[in-house]
């Protein structure tokens, strides 16, 4: 009944990775099971909650709505690739300083979405922040400290404009 597995070769967090997967295996499951990068979480598997957010070729996407075979040849960044050289990225630091998480389950998805948002929009207006967060659901924080974290992260990123960027983005 299952269909034949296909070879998938892709770059994840700057490292060339490969695996074999049926076409129906989602990118989220492939990252978690086959590549053992479990930081990307499953919160709904139908594209609403954002816990599975990763970067594909520089854009934030819901990895539960992509198939691993679609990522063949692509560049993926997951939560495991945001800190570099053992140093947290300003977005991660800001979440920490602002008490922007409680149970932590939605956090990787938020960090990826915020990372993508601030990379494109380094100086966001106040009224742009909440819409940028609307594709991710949190049940613990009531969002207040996440909004604070975005503001602080933007400030940090502007200050340290030489902030390290994940290697694969630089190509």
């Amino acid at each position, binding site marked *: *009944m299952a*269909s034949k597995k296909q070879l998938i070769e892709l770059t994840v967090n700057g490292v060339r990775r490969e695996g074999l997967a049926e*076409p*129906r295996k989602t990118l989220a499951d492939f990252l978690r099971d086959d590549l053992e990068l479990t930081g990307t979480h499953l919160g709904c*598997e*139908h*594209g609403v909650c954002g816990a599975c957010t990763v970067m594909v070729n520089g854009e934030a*996407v*819901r990895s539960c709505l992509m198939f691993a075979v679609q990522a063949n040849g692509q560049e993926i960044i997951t939560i495991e690739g945001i800190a570099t050289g053992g140093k947290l990225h300003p977005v991660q630091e800001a979440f920490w300083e602002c008490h922007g998480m409680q149970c932590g389950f939605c956090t990787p998805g938020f960090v990826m979405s915020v990372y993508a948002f601030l990379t494109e929009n380094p100086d966001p207006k106040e009224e742009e922040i909440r819409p940028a967060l609307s*594709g991710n659901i949190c049940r613990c924080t009531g969002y207040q400290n996440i909004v604070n974290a975005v503001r602080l992260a933007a400030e940090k990123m502007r200050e340290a404009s030489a902030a390290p960027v994940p290697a694969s983005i630089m190509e």
Partner: protein
Amino acid sequence: MKPAPFEYFAPTSVEETCALLAHYSDDAKILAGGQSLVPLLALRLAQPAVLIDINPVRELDYIQASDAGLSIGARTRHRTLERSPVVREQFPLLSAAVEWVGHPQIRNRGTVGGSLVHADPAAELPALALALDATFTVVDSSGSRRTLKSDEFFVSFLTTALDTGELLREVSFPALPVGSGWSFMEVARRHGDFALVGVAATVTLDNARTCTGAHIALFGVGETTVRSRSTEQALIGQKPDEQVIAVAASEVVNDIHPLSDIHATAAYRKYVARNLVEQALTEAVQRAR
């Protein structure tokens, strides 16, 4: 929630796609952005034997603007539309509406063609197609093309006029006539949700501020997006002041047959449609120069 098994193909050209469609026909579904289709697969509400992934078909990813209007390849992502300066300048109605489509992550993958062919009656793009008199270019498995007008394209709930084995290539929007104004409004339960009720409207006024044309498209109000001809007729030939607009807006209930569901009742949708149309017309008329 894991999808049932399927065979997978990733053609890189329209020609290849059509060949696959010819071969697999009813058994195949096109995978574009996946933002609507993949949840259905995950819930096993759809179990196609074959998925034809057109993401690698780059020849369908384009925005071409000219004085005559805008042509958009079916595989163009919502985000490309959102970021396009030429669209913002020439078709601000499209730019305004695409911001309401889901959330940023959805717009990064979702495609214009996918949204139109999925034909959700509460989605934004089908209503835009009606409001802007879009033309759809469709290609069949032998490669031959035909065009469909917007009022032919949306047939019923989640159903378009595409035949089995046909692929949407392009949607084009003619330039709005001089003296046109536009408005886009939506009421949803939460930001980014499908609409409870929405309106996409264009109004054209001549030098004397008399209405010479109007397109009022509603979404969330029935099995498909629909134009309110009664409202349009109540405007054409009139100078749309507050009174005229109010009367025209009240006509909208003649043209919509909304359903009740867990998010809103039919009575709600009728009431809000009327209010929304009134607000949208007011705004469109103000914008008309």
